[in-house]
């Protein structure tokens, strides 16, 4: 804390240098955690696949080739082909884009919504707090996957609707967390000082309380990503997420389900991709939490 305070007094370039120092020390500590590095490597590979899918994929992910349908893994199709003769490896590589799309959509909507509701609730208190927290409780009381299912049922299936439905179930924990942080700092000396200096409530909320919640929000976000991937895949598997012919991993498992006994690779390969990616996010999230939340380190 003290480095930041001094830095703001000294001025811009020193502040930047101090921040840079913090980033470097964070990276150094992170690199000492082998499991975290492993998780990071998985995520980097995922990003790489998504970015360079057209160059990495050996085949067209959408073009049917009925002569080659349900080919077992071999030299032509490294991980086999599906019921329309499409290369499963290419589809899994392209599917990484959809996975990132859903995770991205959910994170950029759920976290800010939850953060805003929580911080406003904690800062203002009173009846607004009561109403907001009751609503949050109701959303928390309903099982996530079921709520998402009901939302998609009402909205209609599709990848964006699935992301929207997951968002609607994902924001409450952020609100709870942000409220707790806001309650802790709203009457602290530095907030009172800013208030006396004449800052508006909105300015206090956005510039002085929200930044304090950021580290716990980031931790929560990385840990949430694995869950989001699993929920999205579950929706896709039930048939309410991405629609064919999109190579979404959950939907691919759903089509491969019919062939599980005779052509095991159709369902197994995309499931393995989901598993690896969500493992990567879990490992990364655990490592970041250990670094940003030192008092939690010993616990989980």
């Amino acid at each position, binding site marked *: 804390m003290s480095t930041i305070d001094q830095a703001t007094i000294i001025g811009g370039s020193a502040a930047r240098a101090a921040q840079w120092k913090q980033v470097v020390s964070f990276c150094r500590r992170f690199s000492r955690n082998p499991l975290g590095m492993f998780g990071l490597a998985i995520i980097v590979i995922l990003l790489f696949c998504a970015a360079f899918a057209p160059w990495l994929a050996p085949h067209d992910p959408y073009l049917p080739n009925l002569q080659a349908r349900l080919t077992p893994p071999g030299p032509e199709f490294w991980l086999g082909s599906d019921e329309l003769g499409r290369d499963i490896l290419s589809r899994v590589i392209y599917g990484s884009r959809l996975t990132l799309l859903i995770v991205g959509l959910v994170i950029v909507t759920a976290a800010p919504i939850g953060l805003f509701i929580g911080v406003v609730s904690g800062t203002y208190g009173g009846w607004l707090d009561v109403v907001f927290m*009751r*609503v949050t*409780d*109701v*959303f928390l*009381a*309903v*099982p*996530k*996957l*079921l*709520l998402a*299912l*009901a*939302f*998609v*049922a*009402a*909205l209609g299936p599709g990848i964006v609707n699935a992301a929207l439905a997951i968002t609607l179930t994902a924001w409450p924990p952020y609100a709870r967390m942000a409220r707790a942080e806001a309650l802790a700092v709203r009457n602290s000396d530095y907030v009172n000082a800013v208030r006396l200096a004449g800052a508006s409530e909105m300015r206090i909320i956005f510039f002085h309380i929200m930044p304090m919640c950021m580290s716990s929000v980031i931790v929560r976000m990385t840990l949430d990503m*694995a869950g989001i991937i*699993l929920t999205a*895949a*579950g929706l896709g*598997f*039930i*048939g*309410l997420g991405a629609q064919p012919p999109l190579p979404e991993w*959950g939907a691919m*498992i759903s089509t*491969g*389900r019919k062939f*599980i*006994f005779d052509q*095991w690779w159709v*369902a*197994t390969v995309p*499931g393995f991709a*989901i*598993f690896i990616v*969500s*493992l990567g996010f*879990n*490992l990364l999230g655990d490592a970041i939490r250990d670094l940003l939340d030192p008092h939690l380190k*010993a*616990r*989980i």
Partner: protein
Amino acid sequence: MALSATDNVHRLGRVASWLATVAVTLLGLVALTFFIGRVIPIDPVLSIVGEKATQEAYDKVYFALGLDKPIWEQFTTYTLKLLQGDFGTSFTTTRPVLSDLLTFFPATLELATIGLFIGIVLGVPAGVASAYWHDKWPDHLIRIIGLIGYSVPIFWLGLVGLYVFYFKLDWVSGPGQIDVFYVGIVKPITNSILIDSALRGEWEVFWNAVSHITLPAALIGYFSLAYISRMTRSLMLDQLTQEYVLTARLKGANEFEVVLGHALRNAAIPLVTIIALSYGGLLEGSVLIETVFGWPGIGSYIASSLFRGDINAVLGGTFLVGAIFVFLNQLSDVLYATLDPRTR
């Protein structure tokens, strides 16, 4: 010791505020399902009658749903009907949703209960061992098993399980609750096939049902184990670093007594509430497992209703599971209060 009047007043006040919380949360749940069913769809009538319906059929449903009335009146009617146990009629089975739910629920309960049982029996000892050998190899092993449980898509693991244990090894029976051959032999008492067949003495049916439930229950058990072992570990780590543990050790208590008699006893109170809460999560996880295993439970009922656009059935199911969640939440609070001597 006789209870004084103020004690009773306090207790009454607590019960009243507890009831109020439950009522408000349930009302919120009603509002949420109402919102999903009536407000989000652009035209709720179309989702029932389909796009090619005649104007006559459309109007009939329009008035039957009460859509001509103001929205708050619709909501009041909806809430009052729910209070009377009227979840509406399922458009596909043409039976009241509530009676459908009651038929399908025991199968889900069976699965989730056995899963939870497996989770507790294996998860608690695993968590204790993990905390006791903190940062040694048993801890790493148990954490990795748990981490895999957190990361793997349950429906996929179900498919792989079917491929390996049913198709390749033939250790367990395939999808469904019992073989077609045995369907209808046992007259229902509780609607739970395991209990009914045992009560009626149909042991052949019973063992067939056991070989069907083994795989899905083991999978749910695995997920429950991943969660419970992680929570047990964290609670035990908290306890084992405290001074009373050191004191007990210094007084010469053996390790067995220190860990199980002292630390676990203190960790048990929050653990019970965590387990009660996780039960709700298992009910939810069964949606996907039931779809994979063709299990005739509430999860596959909801999933199949989704595809037929049967919104009453979906919302009824969501409300039921949501209400169970709320109930479990409250139960865990009550359990905490009764078990923890400090809150007595």
